[in-house]
């Protein structure tokens, strides 16, 4: 067993090796490497598979009570300053490793089908592998510095992948937006890390937590400063996990290929923020103000995401806002101290949301056969409908995903969401109220999505809708809002391969449906690990400060009545949401458009994403431009002035400087002797 832990560093290194090999191949022998498409894919997938096997072995050993393992090497040291690097394996790490590797593995298999005709197939695999490596590195990091390094690395991979089709303006702009937004958060995180180091002299989570409390208790550090540091650190998760107010980048990031949306922007990287909060739990737990901020940020984000998701017509954007909303749940759970509930939801969400995204990719893939490779058409739900007939596997798995996210028992989402809502109720009924309302909306928009995609009649051949949608797209000036999935440039050979403009969509190849089916299993079953009456999950994942018996004790005090009330409430509102959705989009008894007209301001607010993009554009983008112009002015006047002044001085002292320029050796010698003389006189 020890051997397993000694070689645990292989888990992040294996995908890195794959990425390096393929990357080097791409740099050195571009054409040759690009020709070996499948061979490269097999190499990378098998390396990640090996990492997955290792991860499961570690998870198994951790479940069986192996002690946490920490291995560090001194990376840099100068005097009293020591920086260590290494890896740590504990319950949380083991869980995250398993989640990340499985999702990444399945997404990679899926990619083979999805990207089959893309010229950047091999490059895409290299990026995917690099991302997996960074994400796994983040998970095993034992201290804040290393976390920060990998944090930036996953961010970088995310930009690379969002801008994968960099020749498309929208994709390039989305990548830029993600970059800038994340910079804000990362800057806060960096400040927070440095501040915590200044205050406590450590980068270790537990040590920081303990010392910070000692300092606050002894009065050496005022509470305000401690809270400020906590909030700064929290800024990192806010950006990475797309929490309000830095959530704006995530929907645009859907410009990336769909496997990326599934892996990075649904299952893993965005969850890194929640993971960091979990890691920093010892620090945050001692700062109630920060915990409240976290909880309310999460709750508001959950509500915000759900309200926007209601009106989205683009299937991927809808899912993106749903992700924001679900991340809000997790953050809220963390904020109310429901450590294991938040992480439980992280795990279940990772599986069912990855499946939903992959399912949407499959739908888009199928739609492209009908409407062509224009993302404005292929991703719009108004053109879909009735796909269940053509894509049975996809539709079934999608339905499972919808049930899971809506919180219908016994699907995974029910147990985790219910646990969060229960904890929230314990902390603050208002939080519970927001979460409860959001749960209803979640059920509504997910089934709206399901019904308009898979039920009813197929609308993909109705030319007038296509024309209308294309008109809408052209009307939108800002390219960054345009959704996308497939590179329009490769329309040509894409058409040959698919024979597009067939009349009906088709089911995706087995490499795409197989991951869907595999992911459906945990989406259904994994929730049973964390049932409140027999909570294995909580017995495994519990806050670092608490001891295992205490946790079990609390868990065993289970009250059926309370559970029934809570569960009944959330299931009830979910069912209401589903019913409403079926009335509006399945049987069309209620006219959605009429409601939209009646609630025009609310509808517009939701459709325009609460106008966040516009506000940010006016305040920050324009403001920055104005500021930059002023700085330029200053630069022009002051700096250039200084340079000109130097030039002026040079002209004035021209006679002297000429000697320098003409390079007379005698003069040089003179200077040497003069300097010698001067130094003797000055030193004496």
């Amino acid at each position, binding site marked *: 067993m020890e051997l397993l832990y000694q070689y645990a560093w292989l888990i992040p290194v294996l995908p890195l090796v794959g990425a390096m090999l393929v990357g080097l191949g791409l740099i050195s022998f571009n054409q040759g490497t690009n020709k070996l498409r499948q061979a490269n894919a097999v190499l990378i997938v098998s390396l990640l598979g090996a990492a997955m096997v290792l991860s499961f072995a570690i998870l198994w050993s951790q479940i069986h009570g192996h002690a946490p393992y920490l291995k560090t090497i001194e990376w840099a040291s100068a005097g009293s300053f020591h920086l260590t690097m290494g890896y740590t394996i504990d319950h949380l790490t083991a869980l995250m490793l398993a989640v990340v590797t499985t999702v990444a593995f399945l997404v990679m298999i899926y990619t083979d089908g999805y990207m089959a005709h893309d010229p950047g197939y091999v490059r895409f695999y290299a990026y995917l592998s690099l991302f997996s490596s960074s994400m796994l590195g983040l998970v095993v990091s034992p201290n804040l510095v290393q976390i920060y390094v990998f944090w930036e690395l996953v961010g970088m991979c995310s930009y690379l992948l969002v801008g994968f089709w960099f020749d498309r303006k929208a994709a390039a702009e989305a990548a830029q937006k993600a970059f800038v937004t994340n910079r804000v958060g990362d800057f806060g995180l960096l400040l927070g890390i440095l501040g915590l180091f200044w205050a406590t002299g450590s980068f270790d989570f537990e040590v920081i937590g303990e010392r910070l409390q000692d300092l606050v208790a002894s009065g050496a550090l005022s509470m305000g400063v401690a809270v400020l540091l906590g909030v700064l650190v929290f800024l990192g998760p806010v950006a990475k996990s797309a929490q309000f107010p830095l959530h704006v980048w995530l929907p645009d990031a859907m410009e990336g290929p769909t496997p990326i949306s599934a892996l990075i922007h649904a299952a893993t990287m965005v969850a890194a923020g929640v993971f960091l909060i979990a890691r920093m739990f010892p620090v945050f737990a001692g700062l109630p103000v920060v915990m409240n901020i976290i909880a309310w940020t999460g709750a508001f984000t959950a509500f915000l995401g759900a309200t926007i998701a209601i009106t989205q017509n683009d299937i991927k954007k809808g899912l993106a806002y749903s992700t924001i909303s679900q991340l809000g749940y997790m953050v809220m759970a963390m904020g109310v101290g429901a450590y294991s509930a938040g992480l439980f939801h992280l795990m279940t969400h990772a599986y069912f949301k990855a499946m939903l995204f992959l399912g949407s990719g499959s739908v888009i893939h199928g739609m492209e056969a009908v409407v062509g490779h224009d993302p404005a058409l292929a991703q719009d739900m108004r053109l879909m409908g009735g796909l269940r007939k053509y894509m049975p596997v996809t539709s079934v798995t999608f339905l499972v995903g919808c049930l899971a996210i809506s919180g219908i028992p016994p699907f995974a989402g029910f147990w985790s969401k219910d646990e969060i809502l229960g904890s929230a109720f314990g902390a603050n009924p208002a939080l519970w109220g927001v979460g409860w309302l959001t749960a209803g909306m979640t059920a509504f928009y997910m089934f709206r999505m399901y019904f308009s995609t898979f039920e009813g009649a197929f609308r993909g051949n109705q030319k007038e809708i296509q024309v209308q949608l294309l008109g809408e797209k052209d009307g939108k000036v800002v390219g960054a809002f345009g959704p996308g999935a497939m590179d329009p440039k490769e329309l040509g050979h894409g058409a040959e391969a698919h024979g597009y403009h067939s009349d009906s969509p088709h089911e995706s190849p087995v490499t795409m449906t197989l991951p869907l089916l595999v992911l459906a299993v945990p989406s259904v079953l994994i929730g049973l690990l964390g049932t409140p009456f027999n909570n294995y999950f909580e017995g495994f994942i519990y806050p670092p400060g608490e001891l295992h018996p205490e946790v079990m004790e609390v868990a065993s005090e289970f009250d059926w009545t309370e559970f029934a009330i809570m569960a009944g409430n959330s299931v009830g509102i979910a069912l209401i949401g589903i019913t409403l959705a079926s009335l509006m989009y399945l049987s069309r008894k209620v006219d959605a458009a009429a409601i939209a007209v009646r609630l025009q301001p609310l509808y517009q607010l939701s459709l325009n994403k609460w106008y966040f993009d516009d506000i940010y554009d006016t305040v920050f983008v324009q403001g920055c431009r104005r500021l930059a112009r002023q700085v330029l002015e200053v630069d022009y006047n002051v700096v250039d002035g200084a340079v000109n002044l130097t030039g002026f001085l040079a002209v004035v002292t021209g006679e002297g400087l000429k000697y320098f*320029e003409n390079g007379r050796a*005698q*003069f040089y010698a*003179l200077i040497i*002797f*003069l300097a*010698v*003389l001067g130094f003797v*006189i000055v030193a004496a």
Partner: protein
Amino acid sequence: MTLADGVQLVSTLILAAMVIGAALGVVLFDNIVYSAFTLGGVFISIAGLYILMNADFVSAAQVLIYVGAVNVLILFAIMLVNKQEVYSPVPRRWIRKLSAALVSAGLFGLLTVMLLQTEWLPNAAQTAPDSTVILIGEHFFSDYLLPFELASILLLMALVGAVVIARRESIVGEDTAIVGEQPAPVLELPERPREPVA
């Protein structure tokens, strides 16, 4: 003061005066040939000073090498070039002359003050050796062995360098593959000449 001491003192003074006078001549003569000849005078006077210090071998080497070789080489060089060039007076030459004179005078003053202030430690071995050649030889092969051997490397390298610079270049390898956009001129820096300084 014995007679020997008196003779030594007087000859030291005379030789010192010769060194200074000849050195001033090297600097101040306008005609470069005169400068070269007075330089020979400097070397010979210094050789005389060496004799006064019982360094007979060094003195002989000084005459042989500096007067016989270096100075003659300088004269050869002057004659071979033999270019009658009228120096156009540089504008404000007096500034340079003055500053050079000031710095030199300052250094001279400084060193003089230092010489007078310093209490020189007497050398441990005061008695004159029988033969300085033997002494030098012993040193060369004992405690100065390494510098002595290193000097041979230095001389070898200087020899090679002199040959490299002096020889008429026969260009090797006509097949010098040109990588750049234009054929690089042989034996010149591949970079283009800098723009003329304004």
